[in-house]
Structure formats: C-alpha cells, structure tokens
C-alpha cells in the first residue's frame, strides 16, 4: 500500500478569486508579509500496490483525465513519505 498525492492548482494566468480573497483577509487577521495566495485541491490516492514507476504513470494519467482540467489547471504528482 502506498499513498500518492496529486496537487491541482489553477494555472498562474487564471484569476483565482478565492485565493485573492484569502490573501486580502490575512493582513486583517494580523498576518503580514504575504504577497499572494493560490487555492488548490489535494487528492490522496491510496494504491493497492507499491508506488512504482508504472503506478505513478497511471496516477499521472488519472490526473490528466479526471482530477485536473488541463485547460485551466496544473498538477503535480508525488509519493508521500
């Protein structure tokens, strides 16, 4: 068993109003020094077998097909641990 993480974030050029709202709220809460916030999604994919190259490639395909909309989103696949 292994866990593979897929992080999906809007592409840099796509406006992220949720991230902006958070960035605007932070100074109001006393957090300073933040120049920008982007909001994304994190998927925890539990594999039945080991996270070998073939499995990672399969997860990458899942991300391309379903988890991310590559028209507007980028994704990163990594093995946890």
């Amino acid at each position: 068993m292994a866990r593979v993480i897929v992080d999906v974030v809007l592409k840099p050029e796509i406006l992220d109003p949720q991230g902006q709202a958070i960035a605007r709220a932070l100074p109001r809460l006393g957090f300073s020094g933040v120049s920008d916030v982007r909001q994304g999604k994190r998927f925890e994919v539990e594999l039945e077998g080991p996270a070998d190259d073939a499995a990672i490639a399969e997860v990458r395909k899942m991300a391309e097909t379903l988890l991310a909309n590559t028209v507007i989103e980028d994704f990163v696949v990594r093995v946890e641990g």
Partner: protein
Amino acid sequence: MRVGVVTFPGTLDDQDAARALRLAGAEAVPLWHADHDLKGVDAVFLPGGFSYGDYLRCGAISRFAPLMTELVPAAHAGLPVLGTCNGFQILCEAHLLPGALVRNAGLHYVCRDQRIRVDNATTAWTSDFAEGQEITLPVKHGEGRYVADAETLALLESENRVVFRYSGSNPNGSLNDIAGITNEAGNVVGLMPHPEHAVEELTGAPGVDGRGFFSSIVSKLVNA
C-alpha cells in the same frame, strides 16, 4: 422533430428544457446519462443543474457518462447540441467547446435577469435572432466565468464564435464578457444563461426572449 433532453444525476432544468421544446413544437425525448443510446434524436439539449453535485469540477464527472461517449462523436458529425449552464460546463469539460468555466469573480452564486447581446445569429440555435439583438435571460450560477488562453480567445473572436455577450454588467467576470460560444461548425452552442426559463409570460423571467433558441432549432430541423 425529436430533441433529446439529457438527465444526469443532479440535473435540475430538464423539465424546463422539455417544456420549452414542447412549446416550440418539438418532441422532447428524455435521455438518461447511463444509457449508450441517443434514441435517434435530431438534436440534444444538455440542461443545467449540479450534475454529480458539481463535485471535483462542474461537469467533470458527467463528461464520462455512457451517454456522452455517444454524444461526442455525434456532435462532431454535426448533431445540433445546446448546453446551458451546467450543460455548457459539461461541453467544455468534454472538449466539444474550448475553454472552461470557473468560479464567479464575485465568489457568490448569482441569480438575476441579465441583458445579453446576440453576436452570432447563424448557429443552429440562434438563427431566429438578429445579430446585435439584445435579449433578457436569467443567469443563475456560481461558476460561470468563462476563461480560455489568449490564443483561443483570439480564435473565437476572429471566427465570430462568441455567440452571446453580457450587456450592461458582467455577472461573473467572464473574459471578453463572453456568455456563450459555439464550435467551428456552429452546431454545438454553450451558454451560461437560461433560455428555457424565459418562454412563458406567467412563469420564470420577465419576457419570453428564450423562445428564439427553440424556434431556431425547430425551423432548422424542419428545413433540413
């Protein structure tokens, strides 16, 4: 003429879509997401709603429904398809239309009567309008901001494929005020506003400006 109305789990406006088609003189044929069967319809309406709860992304899961595996090639082959709201989102996720629809710039769901300009009156679904005509239709969505890369936008504009633009104020921050677009062939049209809610005097939005969509497709099919 027979026009299919697709129901996914979480589809909401299928009843309105069927009614609008009936009022225009078409037969509305219910299509079920889990069937590999378009029932030989002459056109398809993908109505709005929250298919699969809008989980993951709006339209992302519906795109893989068995019915869609039939619809996509049929649309490429010229079958007229109209997607409104969630239907538009599904058409984009299925790459029948370019770009994507993301969270409204104002971050809130917006339900209001919206002025819209018809910029392309040559598609299968807009031929009964005049180019430049202003109509009022309800918008009601939380994720209706149309985005696409600069190249795609330029292509849409140069090919006159922006079918509708928000007029007056832009409810969601869409690029170029885009409310609806079409594919290269002009048979697939997607838009965020809801023509099916503007076909009767008694109910829905003020006015009956939505009727033009349904009379357009009916006259196209009659003359086909």
